[in-house]
């Protein structure tokens, strides 16, 4: 083995696979289509704070992979993030941001502001020029009031009184646009958020299962996990078990099988097993 110096791995993205992909593409090898995992996330400001709502469905193709995913991430006691887009990017970037904000809070000895969180994640995403596919909604209440901001993968932000994002975002947004008023009460805001999410969980295939909701004010954080379960499987209309004798027996043949006991193992079973549903 020749004296190869140990190479320190360089930080950042490695684009070697892109070169391989380009080569394959030029040889006519097409990649498989990506699977879309949808989401609906929405946030609304009201008189005392903010209401945030998210669905809980995670799909892989047309199969519901996980029907109880929490798409609301904690950044600080008073700041939360909703994530749409690439799930891994949302999870990791919010976790990274959470730890940075915790350090900042300990350093400056005061509650972290929403604007700080937004500025930090904006500059981080801008550095990666859109390759981190995280469409985030940063929400929080701090000394300056309650704020909602959208952050896009390329690093553009906007502070707005209400936002909705994800594959079902358009549907939710139209419901919110119709009924949003300044300084709503908490009940009105929760009802509006619920209706907005209900509209998209029932119309968008990639959103659904449950509506999770948090209500965030200066004093409290109320968690509703779930606020409502959408799309519950209804009770069966009929009894589909078949009576004994439905299938006609034509002939019966009983045979004795010779066997030796090779190994014996005794195990206690706890609880009863439910019968397998056949209908």
């Amino acid at each position, binding site marked *: 083995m020749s004296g190869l110096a140990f190479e320190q791995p360089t930080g950042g993205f490695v684009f070697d696979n892109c070169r391989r992909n380009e080569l394959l593409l030029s040889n006519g090898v097409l990649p498989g289509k*990506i699977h879309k995992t949808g989401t609906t996330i929405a946030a609304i400001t009201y008189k005392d704070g903010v209401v945030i709502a998210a669905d809980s469905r995670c799909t892989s193709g047309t199969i519901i992979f996980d029907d109880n995913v929490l798409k609301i991430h904690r950044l600080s006691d008073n700041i939360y993030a909703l994530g749409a887009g690439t799930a891994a990017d949302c999870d990791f970037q919010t976790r990274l941001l959470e730890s940075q904000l915790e350090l900042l809070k300990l350093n400056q000895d005061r509650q972290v502001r929403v604007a700080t969180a937004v500025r930090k994640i904006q500059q981080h995403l801008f550095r990666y020029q859109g390759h981190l596919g995280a469409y985030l909604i940063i929400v929080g209440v701090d000394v300056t009031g309650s704020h909602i901001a959208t952050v*896009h993968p*390329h690093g*553009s932000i906007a502070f707005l009184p209400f936002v909705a994002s994800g594959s079902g975002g358009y549907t939710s947004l139209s419901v919110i646009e119709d009924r949003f008023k300044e300084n709503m009460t908490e009940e009105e805001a929760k009802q509006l958020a619920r209706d907005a999410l209900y509209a998209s969980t029932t119309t968008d295939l990639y959103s659904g299962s449950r509506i999770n909701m948090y209500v965030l004010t200066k004093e409290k954080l109320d968690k509703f996990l779930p606020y409502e379960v959408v799309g519950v499987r209804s009770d069966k209309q009929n009894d589909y078990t078949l009576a004994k004798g439905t299938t006609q027996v034509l002939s019966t043949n009983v045979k004795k099988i010779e066997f030796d006991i090779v190994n014996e193992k005794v195990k206690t079973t706890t609880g009863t097993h439910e019968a397998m549903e056949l209908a």
Partner: protein
Amino acid sequence: MDVLNPMTYDAEEDQLRDRTKYSQMDKHIIPVEFQQQPVSTGTTIVAVEYDGGVIIGADTRTSAGTFVMNRFTDKLTPLTDQIFCLRSGSAADTQAIAQVVTYQLDFLSAEMNEPPLVRIAANCVRRMIYQYRDDFLAGMIVAGWDKKLGGQVYSCPLGGLLVRQPVTLGGSGSTYIWGYLDNNYRPNMTKDECYDFVLKGITLAITRDGSSGGCARIAIINKDGVERIDVLGNDLPKVFDL
């Protein structure tokens, strides 16, 4: 750089560079309906000097493809107390430039112990655009008031040019109102005439350009400070709308 044989723009070379630089894989993997459009401030921005200050204005639409992301954007971003920049192009790029330049000018004003000149601010913006000209999509106008030269408007378009102009337009909607400018702008207009000119120009551009819309945000910058006026959609001047 060769002065006798300057670099000319070659469309084919530009396309080739585009093809080799970015992966074409995305076009195959992601079906068309799921491809997200970049967020741009396809926009109309106007700035005009008058005796004693400047009047700047912009529409309020930020779009991502055909979806309006924000219908009440503020494209008039303060760089210092009396210098503003108008942003057009990619939302992320222009926001990043504005943030960096704000920091640079803050630092500079601490060093010089006086507010920075408008030309310095414009130069900072222009240098950022020029340095990253291959990566950024940002066309900005820097306008403000300083003690030395009064009200000034500087245009910093895509490639990294810096030029002072008494009146200038920017953004996708500007193409529809160059004719209006040529016909209606006269040098040495009063403050109110300039205000009407800016407001009418933005309204006309909003009427014709799909990427511009919403309301009009106007700011008047002079030695007394900044006066911000938001003209909401139904209050915009009436134009003959077919």
